[in-house]
């Protein structure tokens, strides 16, 4: 039962930078928790505090219910996969995987058994004698994973492990990581700034911004009910359209709850028709650009001074310069107050 609990965790670097400003997350056993947020929001800092590589300024981190604030990384029984893999350059793949076990005093034959078994799962068996510099990026990534798995730790920590791979390999490894994590049933914390990676991997999605947690929830819940305008614009590609209430026709704002300052709607939730069909309940928009990506097309539009993006499935006949009438079903509208907080 390896749970990870963060209680009001804070980090202020000696330089005075407040990187993490009070984060509380409860990760249950066997869950894959993804921390996502823009660059510099404190994701790595938080992960490194869980690993024990960075001292905790305030708050408490507990693994399996036991507070580990004062315990070093080796004794926390965690394993970490680093962004640049951090393989030992002078050791063979085998030794890279065996090193942690040796330091723990695991018997030699057991090390051998575990390394070979792990290598087999990751299809690394034929590479065991190679040195890291003789491997491709994807293979190095696997070795880094292997080094974590072979230790059979309580918690896996991943810091953007796929960011150095090309798009195709990244997609492939993403599926593989997910399957492995399921199969091994090891509680994991995964850091990324790629919202697609976050959405597809997470059991629990934690969206961070500027050192604080904006929202925690299941990926689709977060997508469907963003709690703040930040989450709305960060999760989803292209992001949710956000329009100031002041710019909207009164027919639409009449549906708004009291105190609403911003209307949000997903690109796929705006249905559009030709300008001539403009009605009371629609927004006038002018198309500025069309981006066909195959299965769908994105229309980059302007309403008054605000930009918005619409999604059309398949090919579209709409040309730049066209004028559209955009209609949004009331249940697809998201309302936010002046501080960016969700209303109702």
């Amino acid at each position: 039962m390896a749970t990870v609990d963060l209680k009001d965790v804070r980090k202020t670097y000696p330089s005075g930078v407040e990187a993490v400003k009070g984060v509380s997350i409860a990760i249950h056993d066997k869950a894959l928790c993804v921390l996502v947020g823009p660059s510099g929001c404190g994701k790595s800092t938080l992960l490194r505090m869980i690993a024990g590589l960075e001292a905790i300024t305030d708050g408490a981190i507990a693994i399996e219910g036991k507070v580990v604030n004062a315990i070093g990384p080796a004794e926390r029984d965690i394993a970490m996969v680093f962004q640049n893999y951090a393989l030992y350059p002078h050791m063979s793949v085998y030794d890279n995987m065996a090193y942690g076990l040796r330091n723990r005093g695991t018997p030699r034959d057991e090390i051998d058994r575990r390394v070979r078994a792990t290598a087999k799962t990751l299809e690394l068996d034929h590479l065991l004698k190679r040195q890291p510099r003789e491997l491709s990026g994807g293979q190095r990534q696997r070795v880094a994973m292997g080094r974590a798995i072979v230790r059979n730790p309580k918690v896996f920590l991943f810091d953007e492990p796929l960011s150095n791979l090309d798009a195709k390999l990244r997609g492939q490894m993403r599926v593989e990581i997910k399957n492995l994590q399921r199969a091994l049933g090891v509680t994991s914390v995964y850091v990324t700034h790629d919202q697609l990676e976050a959405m597809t991997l997470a059991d629990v999605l934690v969206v961070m911004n500027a050192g604080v947690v904006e929202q925690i929830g299941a990926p689709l819940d977060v997508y469907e009910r963003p709690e703040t305008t930040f989450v709305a614009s960060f999760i989803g590609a292209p992001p949710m359209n956000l329009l100031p209430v002041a710019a909207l026709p009164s027919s639409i704002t009449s549906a708004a709850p009291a105190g609403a300052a911003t209307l949000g709607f997903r690109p796929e939730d705006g249905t559009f028709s030709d300008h001539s069909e403009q009605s009371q309940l629609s927004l006038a928009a002018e198309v500025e650009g069309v981006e066909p990506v195959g299965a769908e097309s994105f229309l980059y539009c302007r309403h008054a001074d605000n930009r918005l993006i619409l999604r059309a499935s398949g090919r579209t006949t709409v040309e730049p310069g066209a004028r559209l009438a955009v209609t949004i079903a009331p249940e697809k509208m998201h309302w936010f107050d002046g501080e960016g907080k969700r209303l109702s």
Partner: protein
Amino acid sequence: MAEPSMLPPASGHDKLMIGQSAAGIYLAHAVLILGVVIVAFPIYYTFVASTHTLQTILRPPLPLVPGSEAVANYSEALFGGIGRIGGVGVGTLLFNSTVTALGIALGKIVISILSAYAIVFYRFPLRMTFFWLIFITLMLPVEVRILPTYKVMVDLGLIDTYAGLIVPLIASATATLLFRQFFLTIPGELVEAARVDGAGPWKFFKDILLPLSRTNIAALFVILFIYGWTQYLWPLLVTNRNDMNTIVIALRKMISFADADTEWHLVMVTAILAILPPILVVVLMQRWFVRGLIETEK
């Protein structure tokens, strides 16, 4: 001799040189061969002189080909002892020089790698102060601090000992800086991976830092061994007894100002023997040496 076609393919860098035309290649070789002749001829001539009797050497001109006395001269120098330095054999001198040069080279490497390790990987009070202190000693070579150092050695009773020969030359700001620069290129993630893998400070040093530094260590060893081997001023001061002299000092002592007193054939033998160990070290460690200078493994 070297045909143009036997040269390795020109890298991008070579294109900047004249090595593209046949004439250029011959010119380059001519210059190199001339250089080799200028450097090698005196050494060859010393060797020739070491194989003749004293009488032959003293009666010019000295022949250009080796004589018949090689075995006699070398065994006299090595095992018979040389009169002008109190009958000490060249074997003893070689031993003294080897101990001194090895001691200086290894001592410098151990001290500097440990200081660099502390400065780069530990946070302790006055860390930068220590770094600058080490850095400043670059400006204080032995020659500058020779009197106080000599006094200390006398007070400690280290005159005519190996410790006296080695210890004052061991501290090395240059080597410390070199290791520091190398350690700074080691990614922080690697250090952290080792910590997660349960490697403490000592294990990290032994299992990761040391193997990664081995080409650097080899290159430094070559440079420092030769530095130690060719020391003159300090060994001259700190050794009085003939059997504690290094070979370089003994060589100087063997030469008298009155030509007739000098056993030139033995001087030549000693000179040749004095050159051999550094050459041996360079040849044996050449591969490592070059790798250490040009390549950083990461």
